[in-house]
């Protein structure tokens, strides 16, 4: 009687399922939850090259917008990207997606808007007009503009008035900072103002 109860005690302990578990135990495969932000993936929507992604990206060299046979495409560089998801949030066209960033942005009605302010230091500006000539927005509106920055129309972004650079239509600026690069005196500065806004839902 004693021996059989001891035997049963042992049998309880060498239950096959327990023995198997003892030798093969592993943590269940750890899956990445869907709300984790991965490296941004293209959603297939067309990129309009607003370059908001490159302007908000906090990591140097993490994102580029490159031209391919079928148009512009954002390229994420691994080893640089920190998976913050700001490019996904800032893109006006929803070209990229990462985790649930796009869904939560749509659900909460939030957006990252970039506006641009141009400051001209009128003391160091010598009115050469390099900024107005180099500006790609001006070039689209007034291709004839040449040395001196004299404008043939009055709705340009930049023009030279009375020997000084004047910002006429700041709202046309797309923040490319080409004027900054071409100013010999460093007199013009473009500020990119990033604002997180939420539409008031009624």
């Amino acid at each position, binding site marked *: 009687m004693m021996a059989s109860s001891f035997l049963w005690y042992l049998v309880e302990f060498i239950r096959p399922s327990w023995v198997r578990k003892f030798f093969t135990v592993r943590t269940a495969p750890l899956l990445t939850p869907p709300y984790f932000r991965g490296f941004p993936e293209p959603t297939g929507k067309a990129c309009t090259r607003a370059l908001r992604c490159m302007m908000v990206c906090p990591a140097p060299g993490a994102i580029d917008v490159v031209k391919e046979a079928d148009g512009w495409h954002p390229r994420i560089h691994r080893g640089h*990207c920190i998976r913050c998801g700001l490019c996904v949030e800032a893109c006006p066209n929803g070209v990229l997606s990462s985790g649930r960033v796009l869904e939560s942005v749509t659900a909460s009605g939030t957006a990252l808007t970039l506006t641009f302010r141009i400051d001209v230091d009128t003391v160091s500006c010598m009115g050469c007009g390099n900024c107005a000539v180099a500006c790609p927005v001006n070039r689209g509106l007034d291709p004839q503009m040449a040395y001196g920055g004299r404008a043939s129309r009055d709705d340009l972004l930049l023009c030279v008035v009375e020997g000084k650079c004047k910002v006429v239509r700041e709202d046309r600026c797309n923040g490319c900072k080409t004027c900054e690069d071409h100013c010999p005196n460093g007199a013009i500065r473009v500020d990119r103002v990033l604002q997180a806004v939420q539409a008031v839902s009624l």
Partner: protein
Amino acid sequence: MGILQNVKNAVRQRSIHVAYVDVGSCNGCDIEILACLAPRYDIEQYGIYVHNNPREADILLVIGAYTPGWADRLLPLWEKIPDPKVAIAIGNCPISGCLFARPGTLIHPPVAAHIPISAEVPGCPPRPTEILQAVLALAPEVFRDYEVRVL
């Protein structure tokens, strides 16, 4: 001899010893590596042991963007590791310098320019699962055919 070496290699690749070295990171990646040791990820169940001693390491995890203080320290540390050995760059910093790769910062990425790097795990920081995957994918390669062909 060849069979014996094969058996040795097969056994040793299931028991990988890891050392990690922080060459100037923000500690984000260090914390993710520590998370690998914790019960949730538990790297010891895969036969990976962290001793943090280069003399008995097979895999070196390099974290950080390589600050000047490591110029005369990292290579001697790498040479102390007995063959066969591999180094894995963990995080963006050893790959590119990540957020610190700006003008005027005292870092010299990539680490691959200073010691041979076999694998890179991008991310800032990479997830523990990604670090685990990299170590587990490299573990069989470390001892594959080690000293078999020579004999």
